[in-house]
């Protein structure tokens, strides 16, 4: 019996070593792109969805489809035009191929929607089956062009866990769901997970890279990255990262903002932030980029990008050629009086090779500083960088940066009075 126990122990120990060691795995796949573009036979209509908010306390969320945002003479108004989605959806929403995906405000289902020509149309909905999620507090990744994976903290501080659901994006049927096993948490001492965490799918080896904080009632000064085999949702390993306080997004995944990106080699970059030493509030932070190299199961200890003493990373988006566009909050840089709702954000390109940060200029001056840290303002499409701003001295609008030439042109404007919330590149297969 003792021998049997010893054998069992040895097997378990080996299995543990295998599944918790975070070494490199061989995988023949080369493609780093987790969200491959569809190759439709029908023509594809490309346009942008411009999301704005109207009102100060009673807020309406309005969406308008605009095919061309490059006309500086065009002023977009929503006066009795555009879709008012307030009664059904939140602005924290997943988009792909002309459709939006969300757990709507009823909080009881997964939904697929189209917002087009001033109308919100429900394409498919499915009720929760086992796992339940809170509206707009989950993260997502695409496992293939038609499989959407939703993940979040299960909400139960007495028995914390991370739940997941795989969905067929065609009709929103649930393919599989469950709770991650093998993630340790000190629940007895009041530790639980980030509300949503951030999930990214690495197609090259079939792993979901999930980042979460294991925190108690107040903020934690580190976070964890968990590698999950997407095919069976088994946990390969769970690594603590202590060089920064947290990944840039903990509660809303990337439903609204880009917090992570892949480079051309298939390395994953994660925007992170750390509370400033002189901070009067936890939200006053300085940002860094961390990297998980392709095929690796840990952060690259030799890499820390955006090594600057100031600048909280709000969004980070890859623009090609080993460069990223960062939307950075820094009231000192912008001359704003404080961190809150001031015009304290600016755009800068970060060269991932040299770590050189270059602010985007227009006519020899910095692009107007912008207000809004809960918005997505940078979009890369067809060799151009589309940058939305909520500036103080002029109407909200779009600037277009030509990636090849570095030229910047002024695009359309939004009628004064709206709060510009989101610029979304959409592609719709014309049927």
């Amino acid at each position, binding site marked *: 019996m003792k021998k049997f126990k010893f054998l069992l122990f040895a097997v378990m120990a080996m299995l543990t070593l295998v599944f918790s060691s975070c070494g490199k795995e061989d995988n023949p796949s080369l493609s780093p792109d987790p969200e491959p573009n569809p190759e439709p036979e029908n023509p594809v209509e490309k346009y942008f969805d411009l999301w704005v908010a109207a009102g100060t306390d009673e807020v309406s969320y309005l969406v308008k489809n605009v095919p061309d945002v490059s006309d500086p003479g065009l002023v977009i108004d929503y006066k009795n035009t555009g879709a*008012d989605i307030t009664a059904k959806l939140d602005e924290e929403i997943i988009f792909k191929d002309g459709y939006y995906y969300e757990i709507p405000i*009823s909080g*009881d289902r997964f939904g697929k929607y189209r917002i087009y020509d001033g109308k919100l149309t429900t394409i498919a909905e499915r009720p929760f089956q086992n*796992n339940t999620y809170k509206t*707009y507090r989950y993260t997502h990744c695409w496992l293939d062009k038609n499989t959407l994976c939703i993940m979040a903290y299960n909400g139960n501080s007495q028995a914390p*866990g991370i739940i997941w659901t795989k969905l067929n994006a065609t009709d929103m049927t649930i393919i599989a769901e469950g709770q991650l096993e093998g993630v340790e948490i000190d629940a007895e001492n009041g530790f639980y997970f980030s509300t949503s965490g951030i999930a990214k799918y690495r197609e090259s080896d079939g792993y979901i890279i999930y980042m979460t904080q294991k925190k108690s*009632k107040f903020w934690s000064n580190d976070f964890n990255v968990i590698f999950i085999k997407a095919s069976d949702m088994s946990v390969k390993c769970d690594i603590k990262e202590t060089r920064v306080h947290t990944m840039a997004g903990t509660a809303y995944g990337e439903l609204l903002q880009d917090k992570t990106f892949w480079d051309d080699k298939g390395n994953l970059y994660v925007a992170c932030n750390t509370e400033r030493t002189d901070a009067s509030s936890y939200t006053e932070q300085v940002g860094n980029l961390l990297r998980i190299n392709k095929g690796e199961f840990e952060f690259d200890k030799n890499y820390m990008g955006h090594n600057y003493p100031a600048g909280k990373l709000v969004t980070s988006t890859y623009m090609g050629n080993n460069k990223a566009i960062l939307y950075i909050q820094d009231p000192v840089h912008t001359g704003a009086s404080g961190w809150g709702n001031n015009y304290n954000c600016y755009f800068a390109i970060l060269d991932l090779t040299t770590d050189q940060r270059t602010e985007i200029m227009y006519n020899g001056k910095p692009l107007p500083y912008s207000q*809004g840290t809960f918005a997505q303002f940078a979009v890369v499409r067809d060799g151009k960088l589309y940058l939305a701003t909520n500036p103080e001295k002029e109407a909200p609008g779009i600037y277009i940066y030509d990636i090849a030439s570095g030229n910047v042109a002024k695009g359309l404007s939004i009628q004064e009075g709206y709060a510009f919330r989101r610029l979304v590149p959409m592609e719709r297969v014309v049927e």
Partner: protein
Amino acid sequence: MKRILLLFLLMSISATVSVTASVAQTGRAKYSLNGIVQTEGGEALQTAIVTIKENNTLWKETDRNGAFEFKLAKGTYTLVVSLTGYRTLEKKIRIDADSRINIILAEQAENLDAVTVVGKSKAQLLKESALSVNALNIRPVINSTHNINAIVNKTTGVRVRETGGVGSDFELSINGMSGNSVRYFIDGVPLSSKGSGVNLANLPVNIIDRIEIYKGVVPAYLGADALGGAINIVTKEDKSNYLDFSYGYGSFQTHKTDFNARYVTKGGLIFKPTVGVNYSKNDYKMKSVEVWSEEEGNYVYQERKRFHDDYFSVFGQLEVGVTNKKWSDAFFVSASYSKVDKELQTGSIQSIVYGEAERKSDAGNISATYRKKDFIFDKLQFNAVASYTWDHSRTIDTAFRKYDWNRNYILTTRNEITGDSKSIRHYKRPRAVVRANADYPINGNHSFNLNYLFNRLGNERYDQVDKSFTKTNDVLANHILGLSYNQILFDGKMNNVFFVKDYIDYLVVRQRDEYWVSGSDKVDEKSVKVYWGYGAALRYSLSEEISFKASYEHSVRLPLGNELLGNGITVLPNLTLKPENSENFNIGVFGSARISDKHLFNYEADGFIRDASDYIRAVLSERDGLMQYENVSSVKIKGIEGELSYNYSDILKFILNCSYQDARDMNKYKEDGKASITYKNKLPNRPWLFGNAELDLYFRNVVGRGDRLRVGYHYQYMHWFYLTWEAYGSLDGKSKIPTQHQHNAVVSYSWKNERYNLSLECNNIFDKALYDNFMLQKPGRSLFLKFRLFIN
């Protein structure tokens, strides 16, 4: 402060001028008419109303000796004397010298409705005062009434938005100012002193004499820091012993019973017990709820019954005291207990379905009231109330289940309301209230009133299950001082009121968790703040047919504990809330025309402006069913409203009223300091056009002598409105709260001089899907049968 000094100056000048005018008038040939109003047994009748019929703006209320006094020029006058519970009496009298008169009123089993009373009720007199006020006599409708909200909702300018059936949450608005901008009182004391669960919907109806609804301008003697108005419930003060019992049963397994009595021992000790119990299953059908259809692979709209909406409330109170003693006109001590158990069926919209969550509250109260005329010195009337309340409420959310309208559920890892851990959230909110009021009449035409109200609210919160919840114990206290001067000029044709109010707010905050939500990092642990309010009201009567009134108040409303501290479940705290301010203006014309003894027309038309800044509103988060109160920097509401009523003898009564409100967002700038697109836009999600029509027919001696049959019909209209900003986004896809046409009918029969009363009420006759709020359906057709026994 300059404005307040200016107001004082105005009051002083006005007082000097008016006293001079009064003296000058007195200098003309005027005679004194003294009188005493008594029962047939010789007992003095206090608070009887004596009106000069030829000039009905001239009226007096009898004192504790039943005495009244007029100064009248030579002539013939008709005195009309009325008092609840007694037959109204008319008496002609010739004045050509100082005179004295004794008036004897005969008892009446129950005062009939307003159409039978030629003399003016207190409610009518209040309506004709300088203030903008709806005054409702409850007694005429007491036999059929089982919900005060329904009665209040019929009046001009008032809208009650209910979220469901019996016991559901509701929001009452007066002239567009809603929610907590409206303060509730019972006999001048905050209603919350009876417990946080006691409200208009569950208070025993039988104890109520009348309801006063003050619009915009609130008298200083209420001690209210109300922005939009106040509701004062005045309980009945019958002089004789009685027993009043009623039981009603209605649709959706609704039961309601009220018991109320007065008994005087031989030693003069008065006992007044009150009990009110409400229960409803609220299992009405929801007409179009989303239900998942596996066959169709989609959600379909179907009818389903509500299955988790039981409501139970009980209110018990015993008052013991004495009246007409040398040391006190009235002294009572009382103890009360209230309990409310409520199951929660839905979140902020009906597609958020709960099946286990509950809310419970218990409250106990002790209080003492003291009233004395000629207190310390002659003519000074003093009354005081001291009250202490233990209030304990719990929200129980311990089911890890997600329900749907089929009553099916899935097991989850989240509670139902917030989607977090299991929770039994406790709130202990002890409340101490002290009110002292002194009224001093200089003479019959001038009086001063000084009011002091102290209100202290504790807020201890903890969670029995969720150990991650931070315990706190906050204190909110305020002192409100009010001084008013009332003058009557030109033989009662003119009535002016001037007042100032001083609000002193004291706050101790200990909750520091989730500071990014509550703003606790932006407030000091202890703070004292002082605010001033002031106003004036004027009424001038050209004749009985036409009178004008105007009033103004710079009102201040301090944030309530609930707004500031949240309720821990559905209302998030916001410790940075500032008091609301509003400049409230009312202007109106009213009058009545009597064509012979049979036809009586009454009309009233009013216009109002509410210019509110730092306006506090519950901002509904569509996201997860949570709310948080916030300061909306500025809201301007303009409106007009009117009421027309016609009485034919004592057999027909018809009332028609309509209210139009235009509420605009006056936030010029967004949080970022730039212009807001919705500036001056019509505010979304609020009713703006609504009205009522009511017809009552009365038949007497139908079966036997002394019986009475009332057949009534009520129609209520509410125009549809948008959930979100009307001007932005395509109108096709916008969500609306649809137009409501609600038809109700009532048949009420009383016999043996109203000793026995039976009524049958049918609400929503045509079984329409009615909504006051977006996707929160109210009950369909319902019946309610009520029996009432009244013995005196």
